């Protein structure tokens, strides 16, 4: 049996459509949104498989996570043969759906499916959708009026609307039949076609509340044009980077979004319903020291982009020279900069205080030794939003020499251990994923990272304010222990001057920081403890070498006591990768044996109690 489509194609496509005959073998079964239906589909394996995959893995999943209103208007850009629109229309009878499909063959199948299933709420239009800037029709008013008329009069003449639209260059794949991208792709894989193109901005007249978009290489322009529309649901797939700033307009609807990047399912535009009340931006919290040489010119650089995406919270003692310098550098009249007066506060205390003042979804903590490149934090915020990761970071290198703030041009950091990691595209650079455990064992570099505020709050991660040093180490270990990996941006870098040499209280801070971490590891049920133990041994051995001989025994005994509590609490299996000879100290070993022996008859919970009590810095 054969069927022929109802021909509603405009004149320029008539010949192709007339040639389209439908064989019942062309039907495939769709299972989605609670519907099981047979639809006609072009007999092209790639196209069918690709469409069905997207239906199941993107559209259905994404709409399963969102609560749809009973009524609405959906735009289906790149509708194909109706793989999304047809089951969606059956599942959501209160919705009107505008389908845009410029490929004549796919459009003929789409129209056939609509007609066969009598889906009067779908209006199929044989157009590409483009950018208002480039594709604005000469008579925009007439196009808007024609579009509006379609909402109420499905018999409205398409030819008239088509005649109003400009023809624009598109490239049709000769290998993946059904793939059409914006522009003139000169590769031999593509043939060149001109199709009537509707500027996306015109679609606002339809008051859409759902956008499904498959428009290779035109995604950014379409979403930009619709960035002010009150759209609650945005789904699709993208073939190039879509900046998240497109989705940030305050009046642009709920914008629950799921548009993964083709071939990179862990990356893409994402946004779920926000219940936190936090503002979607990054607060960079700058802790100002009370003395020392500082340079805050980077703050002005950071704010040279006029967007409200990045703001700065400066925390310090207003009366000090560094604070005055910071305030001179970043004008007080800029609403993106706020200063908080905190006399005699340590760095960790200032960062905690700044965080409490912040209402942002993302936070970074930097200090007076920082020198991020201009676009460093913009890049990290974008990476954080596109991956949803709790922590993201960029590369860094140490600033040394007489002028610690002079970035040596041409020098770029080499993260050798990450050199072989696969790279993924983001905007005009790349990123890779670094395992958390590799980073835990490195010296703390918390200032080159951006953190999700809800993650820090949920995991109760703060800077320990009673530690004169090692606070960054505690913070780094707590954050990295709670996540699987850290997306790491390539390209832009963060300069950081080495910290001042440790003071005399460094030894007790090391012991205290590990007490805090072991206590947290016990109470929170950490299961991978080796990185923590290895770092403990590394820090201990390094510190012993810097201590005066008379201070060493007390330090080693305190460390051995902690080690014994940890052995009792976590059990021998946890220490397979952390044998006692890591420490290379007889004093340590002897004292460990002595304390561990005393703990013998006690329970593990008593060992944890010891770790929970008091501070080694008191």
């Amino acid at each position, binding site marked *: 049996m054969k069927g022929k489509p109802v021909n509603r194609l405009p004149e320029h496509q008539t010949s192709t459509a007339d040639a389209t005959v439908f064989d019942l073998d062309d039907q495939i079964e769709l*299972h*989605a*949104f*609670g*519907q*099981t239906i047979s639809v006609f589909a072009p007999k092209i394996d790639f196209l069918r498989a690709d469409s069905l995959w997207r239906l199941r893995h993107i559209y*259905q*999943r*994404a*709409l*399963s*996570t*969102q*609560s*749809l*209103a*009973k009524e609405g208007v959906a735009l289906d850009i790149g509708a194909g043969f109706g793989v999304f629109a047809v089951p969606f229309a059956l*599942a*959501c*009878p*209160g919705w009107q759906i505008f389908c845009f499909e410029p490929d004549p063959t796919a459009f003929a199948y789409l129209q056939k499916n609509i007609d066969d299933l009598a889906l009067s709420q779908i209006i199929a239009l044989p157009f590409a959708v483009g950018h208002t800037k480039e594709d604005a029709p000469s008579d925009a008013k007439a196009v808007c009026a024609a579009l509006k008329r379609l909402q109420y009069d499905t018999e409205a003449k398409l030819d008239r609307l088509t005649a109003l639209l400009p023809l624009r260059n598109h490239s049709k794949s000769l290998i993946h039949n059904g793939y059409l991208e914006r522009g003139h792709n000169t590769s031999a894989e593509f043939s060149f076609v001109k199709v009537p193109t509707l500027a996306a901005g015109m679609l606002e007249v339809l008051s859409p509340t759902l956008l499904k978009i498959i428009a290779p290489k035109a995604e950014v322009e379409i979403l930009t044009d619709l960035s002010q529309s009150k759209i609650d649901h945005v789904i699709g797939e993208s073939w190039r980077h879509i900046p998240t700033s497109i989705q940030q307009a305050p009046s642009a609807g709920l914008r629950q979004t*799921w548009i993964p990047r083709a071939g990179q*399912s*862990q990356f893409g535009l*994402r*946004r*779920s*319903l926000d*219940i*936190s009340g936090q503002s979607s931006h990054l607060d960079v919290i700058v802790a100002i020291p009370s003395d020392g040489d500082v340079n805050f010119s980077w703050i002005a650089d950071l704010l040279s982009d006029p967007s409200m995406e990045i703001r700065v919270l400066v925390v310090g003692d207003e009366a000090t020279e560094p604070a005055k310098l910071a305030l001179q550098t970043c004008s007080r009249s800029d609403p993106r900069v706020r200063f908080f007066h905190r006399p005699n506060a340590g760095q960790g205390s200032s960062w905690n205080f700044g965080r409490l003042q912040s209402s942002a979804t993302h936070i970074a903590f930097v200090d007076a030794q920082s020198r991020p490149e201009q676009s460093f934090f913009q890049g990290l915020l974008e990476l954080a939003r596109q*991956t*949803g*990761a*709790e922590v993201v970071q960029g590369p860094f290198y140490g600033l040394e020499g007489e002028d610690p703030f002079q970035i040596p041009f041409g020098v770029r950091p080499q993260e050798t251990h990450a050199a072989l990691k696969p790279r993924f595209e983001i905007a005009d650079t790349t990123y890779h994923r670094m395992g958390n455990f590799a980073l835990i064992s490195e010296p703390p570099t918390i200032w080159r990272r951006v953190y*999700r505020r*809800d*993650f820090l*709050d*949920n*995991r109760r991660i703060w800077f320990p304010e009673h530690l004169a040093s090692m606070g960054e180490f505690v913070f780094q270990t707590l954050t990295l222990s709670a996540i699987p990996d850290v997306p790491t941006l390539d390209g832009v870098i963060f300069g950081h001057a080495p910290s001042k040499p440790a003071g005399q209280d460094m030894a007790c801070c090391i012991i205290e920081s590990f007490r805090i971490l072991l206590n947290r*590891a*016990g*109470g*929170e*049920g*950490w*299961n991978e403890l080796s990185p923590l133990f290895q770092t403990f041994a590394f820090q201990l051995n390094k510190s012993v070498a810097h201590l005066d001989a008379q201070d060493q025994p007390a330090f080693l005994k305190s460390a051995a006591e902690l080690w014994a509590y940890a052995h009792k*609490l*976590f059990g021998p299996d946890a220490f397979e990768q952390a044998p006692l000879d890591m420490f290379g100290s007889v004093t340590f070993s002897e004292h460990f044996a002595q304390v561990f022996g005393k703990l013998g008859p006690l*329970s*593990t*919970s008593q*060992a*944890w*109690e010891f770790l929970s009590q008091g501070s080694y810095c008191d």
Partner: protein
Amino acid sequence: MPKITCITTTYNEGALLLTAVGSILNQSYRDFEYLIIDDGSSQETLEILSRLTDPRVRVIRQANAGLSAARNAGLELAQGDYICFLDADDLRPNWSFAAIASLIDATQPDLVLCPGVLSDLRGQIEDFYDAAVFEQIAQFLPEGISARNNPKHTRLCVMAQQLEPQSANKVVGRSFLQAVGLHFPAPYFFEDIFFHTLAIVQADRIAILDCPAFTYFRRYQRHQITATTGELRFDIVSVAKLTLDAFALRPEFSDLAYRNVVLASCLKLIDWCETCLAHPLRATFRQNVREMTASIDPRFGEIQHDEGLSPIFMAALHRHLLVSNDRV
């Protein structure tokens, strides 16, 4: 009487609750009632509940008695022919009731099992954890419905037992529930394995839905019971004991593969709870587990090396039965 009753229990979810409520009230299928059992929430949640004016919503308040007790209160009050559950921080897509009602009309089951979607901590959207088991079931039972007299039925139950014991993935006939007297094991948390096991084994007709009917959200914005590291996790040992004892009384207990999978599904949860537990509590937890496994029917200790059991289930069986091997 409505076709479907949906039960949501609340405890201080605040504004998050509106996601679940909105998703139910926006269902394209309209023949349902929505019971919200508030388990002693504070003012913010109560104010949100007081603003719900849809006539299909009934809000019932009780003093805090725990999740199982709240769900049981809902079961007592439900009037729908079929009952389902939705946690207050989760969501049902708006086609789910229509799809479920259509399947019910076509198959008249005691129990419908539904796939779901997971929105993870990074906002990544994936199929729910047990998608692979649903795939296996679809291959094994393409007709999507099985009655007890079906030769495939026991095998289906063995597969279904390996699904995540989630309350949102089940729609249960009210008359069936009343007939078998099934409820949640109050006052315990980690209660789902009991309801899951006994619903599957006692249902005469089981239907499988072929589209997602719920989304489970993992969030940083709210503390979830499944993230606790405290003594609440000891409840799983008690719930496992209740589950295994109840299953041992069933005729299906004589089926070695079925017996294995019920034990394995309990042990898998126990293992997961142990890895989430604070270290100071682990020794006591393990002792409790040993005492529990020593107290169950010794025939649970016989293992059939069945290829149908997934490696994680098999590993759980071996790990625990080696510990108590001397008793087997």
